[in-house]
């Protein structure tokens, strides 16, 4: 018990009382998606049907309980199990190929669905994921973003920061102009951001 525990707290998922996102620091688990193997303490709960579904996200473990179980009653037990399982990350393994780009793709999608995407949409713009390869991300900015002089700032300050928080190995985020296929509108360098 002397080693500090992995930081952990639950956040609700809107409109779904049975699911909680257990927020975990980035990098504790090095894959995303459904796990093939989980530590015994979680496997038991999957086996006896308490946990209906479990998925790893870039900065969280999403757990859905099946009907009779509820977070209010079973929460402390579930916390203990997740906490214990996080202490042994090597006992987790992914179902899919679990490639780093897969993690990155999910991280980008989370950012688009989350605060940053909401911010862009609130200003009448839109951002969509086009492609992820080798740690580089191509997105499309549309709507009011198209001719907005501040879209650069949004992309570096907000979008890239948020993605990097979930995927520290991010190499670049590019905004690609769809109307001219294949044409790269601008490439954002990483170096100026390193000063953080």
């Amino acid at each position, binding site marked *: 018990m002397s080693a500090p525990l992995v930081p952990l707290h639950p956040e609700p998922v809107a409109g779904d009382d049975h699911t909680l996102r257990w*927020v975990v620091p980035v990098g504790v688990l090095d894959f995303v998606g459904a796990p093939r193997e989980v530590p015994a303490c979680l496997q038991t709960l999957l086996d006896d049907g308490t946990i209906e579904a479990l998925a790893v996200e870039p900065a969280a473990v999403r757990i859905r309980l099946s009907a009779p179980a509820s977070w209010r009653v079973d929460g*402390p037990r579930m*916390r203990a199990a997740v*906490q214990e399982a996080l202490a042994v990350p090597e006992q987790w393994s992914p179902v899919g190929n679990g490639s780093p780009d897969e993690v990155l793709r999910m991280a980008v999608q989370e950012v688009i669905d989350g605060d940053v995407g909401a911010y862009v949409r609130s200003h009448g713009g839109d951002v969509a994921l086009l492609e992820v390869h080798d740690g580089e991300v191509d997105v499309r900015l549309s709507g009011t973003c198209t001719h907005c002089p501040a879209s650069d700032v949004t992309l570096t300050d907000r979008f890239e920061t948020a993605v990097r928080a979930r995927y520290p190995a991010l190499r670049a985020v590019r905004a690609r102009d769809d109307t001219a296929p294949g044409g790269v509108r601008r490439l954002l360098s990483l170096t100026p951001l390193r000063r953080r």
Partner: protein
Amino acid sequence: MNAGRSKSRASVATLRAIPRLALVGSPNSGKTTLFNALTGLRAKTGNYPGVTVARYEGTGRVADHEVVVEDLPGTYSLDPISPDEQIVTDVLDPLHDVDTPDGLVVTLDATTLRRSLGLLSHVLHTGLPVCVVLTFTDELTRRQGSLDVDALRRALGVPVVSVVAGRRHDLSELRELLPDPQSWSRPPVLPPTGPSEVSSWIASVLSAARYVMPAVDERTRRVDAVLLHPLWGTLVFFATMFAFFQVIFTVAAPLQDALERFFGYLGSLVDAYVPAGWLGSFLSDALLGGVGGVLVFLPQIALLFLLVSLLEGVGYMSRAAFLMDRVMSKAGLEGRAFVALLSSLACAVPGIMATRTLPSARDRIATMMAAPLMTCSARLPVYVLLIGLLVEPGTRLGPVGAQGAVMFGLYLLGAVSAMVAAWAFSRIGRGSGPLLPFYMEMPPYRMPSARSVALSVWGACQTFLRKVGKIILLTTVVLWLLLNLPARGAADLRAAGVDTRDDAAVSAYVIDHSYAADAGRFVEPVFQPLGFDWRINIGVLASLSAREVFVATLGQVAAAEDPDNPSTALQDMTLDEGPRAGEPLFTPPVLAALLVFFLYALQCMSTVGVLRRESGSWRWPAIAFGYLFVLAWVMALTARLVVGAVT
């Protein structure tokens, strides 16, 4: 926990109209400021921990609803170590017979969020609806910290509102939330309970909220380098206190003169329009001479509280407590005791209540025994009057006024005596047990809000006026009766050889042969060695109810002897009997003895009452009264002899 929920639901059903909310938070996290803003009440706030030790309750109007808001003492955890923390735990415990609130408003100081979240994790486990109010976010920003309030709300699962407590327009969001605690979102899973699990939870919540710790406040750090310095800090402390009393004398004097002139004018009106007789005597002697004599000290009281609340609001009082903690710990007392003694500068009653922050029962008693020695504001009128007789107003000691210097000396002597008494009482019986750790937050220097300073001064003036209106008026009327009874007919007076046409001679005769004079003469043997005559004795006896009554009594006696000019009458009062008959009564040795007597004696029934309540029996108030009386007598005799030898 289940019992808690069902009980709180039941109480909501009955109290549907008026929900009860309690404010919980660490010391100095802005609870009381928030409380005052929500309820418009005037609870005392200060920029040092431990100001609120009792429960305050107030009603706030929120939109169209009323809510009852209760301000609880600050606490760092719900595992109580001291009586004031026990109050919080009892209120939050649904099984305890104290009314459990319908919802808890937890104030979290944004600059010390990591520590504050530990308290929040405890509070969430009570099962009551919880709403978080983030305070000092303005200061967090100023000190280059940052925090995402929305993300914090998501991570905690409860409503989070950021309120800069002094500013009223920040409150609208909170006001919308308050009327319906049952609608507040609750965390899906309660925080963990084990210590390492709790730190894991706190770390995770803070990183989700992208919390950046504030830098050490540069301004505060630089100022503290001087003010907390063992040598410079102490020098600054004494210089500040010295300046403090100079201001009280020099600034308040013109205001006091104006008030005196006003009462003099009222007196001339009474003389002109009210026929001489018992009514005229009552109006001019009892009301104007007695009560008016006390009322003229209102400017000093207001000024004292203005200065104290400025020092508190800025954050200097915590530094003073820190400096003194070094001294106190040498004497085996902890810094919390000093905070209690500091509160006693205003009045011993809150000071004694502040001992609830002390975990050790032995230290509590020791501090209670010492608190009455701190110079409270009730002594101020007595000191000002007597110092005025002792030292000519213009006298200067080098660059400073002598009156202020004497006053400073009295405060200093009171403080030193209090420390010595606390030390002595903590030694008796305790041996030398280990000291519990004392944490005192050094709050950053803040501009005191004009509102809270004004409220503090207004509150003090109100208390003073209420005291004058009740206890002092009552005692004065009783005294007036005692001074004027038995009634003397013209035949009695002629039989005693008094010229009935000379009003002054008549009233002098009546007073000299009144019941009060009998009482004064009865105790004369006790006070004879101190040089007090029966008139001072009456004052001292009467001042057992409240110290200011002494001023009122002397005012009455003087007004009876010379209705037009009571202050000169006081100055020229002579002994009228005994071996020293004809000599002036108020000689420097007698004045010194009186000052010292008032410094030590426990002449305050409110203090005795609160001692009884806080210690749970009559034993300690009796001990306090006894030891302080003996001490007062011995020290007054010493003062008389010393001053007599010097002058």
